[in-house]
């Protein structure tokens, strides 16, 4: 019984703060959005070695409004990583304990990760279009994120293709662990192999205080949104499962 009590379950204390976390996250993100335009100063976008030809246009270091997307892009990406880390953690926990509850947690974590990964792809792609002048380039970060997105989608396709809950949970856990190992390798490989095709894009180092402030507000806001979404979705899935279990019991 003591062990049972430790399992994540709908109606525990996080559920009480989840709606407030979501609300606070929404408010903070909105404040961050306003701050990005009103408070943080314009910055140099990614600086290029001199003037480079990228995607048919000449690009050099200049003040870019498109840089504003960074205030959302980076926090969203970090939240997606955190969601993925939780999904991986629960997958390992599932393989250790074989508790179906951890499988539910991992699945919900993956769902949240997919939402944030897609947000990252969209914001990143907008930035790529305006900064580098192309919609898509096989840059290490873009490639890795594309692969990450495909693996998460494959995870859900796999889940849908298996009927037995036990087997589905085990396979899904194995795939999510492999994916979490594969994605850093993917980044390393695409990063380290020298390529003559892509221009070398240097990053401006460091953030000023106003930028850091804005990123911080967005970061906390989106983390709260991620947490709130996770918890509410988990509650919903759990209640549906319990409902189903009750129905099955009545039928027997």
């Amino acid at each position: 019984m003591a062990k049972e009590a430790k399992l994540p379950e709908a109606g525990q204390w996080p559920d009480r703060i989840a709606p407030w976390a979501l609300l606070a996250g929404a408010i903070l993100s909105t404040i961050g959005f306003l701050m990005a335009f009103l408070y943080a100063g314009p910055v140099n976008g990614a600086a290029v070695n001199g003037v480079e030809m990228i995607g048919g246009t000449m690009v050099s270091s200049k003040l870019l409004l498109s840089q504003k997307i960074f205030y959302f892009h980076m926090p969203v990406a970090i939240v997606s990583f955190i969601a993925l880390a939780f999904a991986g953690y629960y997958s390992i926990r599932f393989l250790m304990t074989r508790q179906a509850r951890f499988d539910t947690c991992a699945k919900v974590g993956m769902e949240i990760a997919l939402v944030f990964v897609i947000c990252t792809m969209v914001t990143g792609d907008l930035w790529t279009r305006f900064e580098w002048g192309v919609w898509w380039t096989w840059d290490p970060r873009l490639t890795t994120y594309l692969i990450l997105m495909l693996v998460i989608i494959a995870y859900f396709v796999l889940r849908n293709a298996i009927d037995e809950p036990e087997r589905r949970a085990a396979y899904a856990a194995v795939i999510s662990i492999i994916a979490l190992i594969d994605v850093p390798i993917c980044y390393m490989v695409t990063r380290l192999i020298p390529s003559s095709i892509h221009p070398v894009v240097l990053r401006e180092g460091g953030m000023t205080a106003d930028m850091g402030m804005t990123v911080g507000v967005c970061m906390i806001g989106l983390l709260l949104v991620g947490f709130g979404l996770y918890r509410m979705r988990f509650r919903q899935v759990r209640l549906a499962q319990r409902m189903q279990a009750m129905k099955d019991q009545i039928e027997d």
Partner: protein
Amino acid sequence: MAVTLRKPSTFQQYKTLLRKDLEREFRTREMLTSMGIYAVLVLVVFGAALGQTTPALDLLQVAGGLLWALIVFTSLLGLNRSFAHEKEQGCLEGILLVPLDRSVIFLAKATSNVFFLLAVEVVAVPLFYFFFLTGVSLASDFWLVLVPLLVGTIGMAGIGTLLSTITINTRGKDVMLAVLFVPLVFPLLYACASSTTALLVGAEGYMDVFVQSIALAGGYDVIMLLVSWVLYDFVISA
């Protein structure tokens, strides 16, 4: 008369499982023929796709990538079938009844998959050369292509064995394997394609690119084989 029972060593178990796969294949030649024909068909498709290119210039740049596209598609076909016949006669259940370490099954199956893929490559790679590269002057060290071929094949067979064990129990298993296999094998594919291209083109400093790519591909192989080996127990007993 005393009956002595001796538990076969792990290596003997491995050899027996491997021999079972190879013997079955030599009797039916199911996988090798289908993979070989498929490889030729992919080459024909490439022929149509590259109809308007000038061989000397464009083709050399893309040849390495095309070779790996050929290998990935052929491997997908072979890996799909590698567990299909285990399932048909309940062979897998029989193997699982034997008290052996589950990872031995993984090693044996991965080894046989490596052999089948290599056997197909022995036919497909010279054919690729014959169809596309005879009119092109290759770099002097192009025979080193054997290294990425070997490293890539081992990695694909390793991760592919794990994934095909998973997909054999799913609905729509052919598509499912591709959906899982292609993103997960992407880093290996990228490294192998870049090392092959570096060798074939032989531009300045190609040896650095080659060595670095091969090192990364080898690292992928080691990590992924170890992970698959560890996780295989969970997959096959699920």
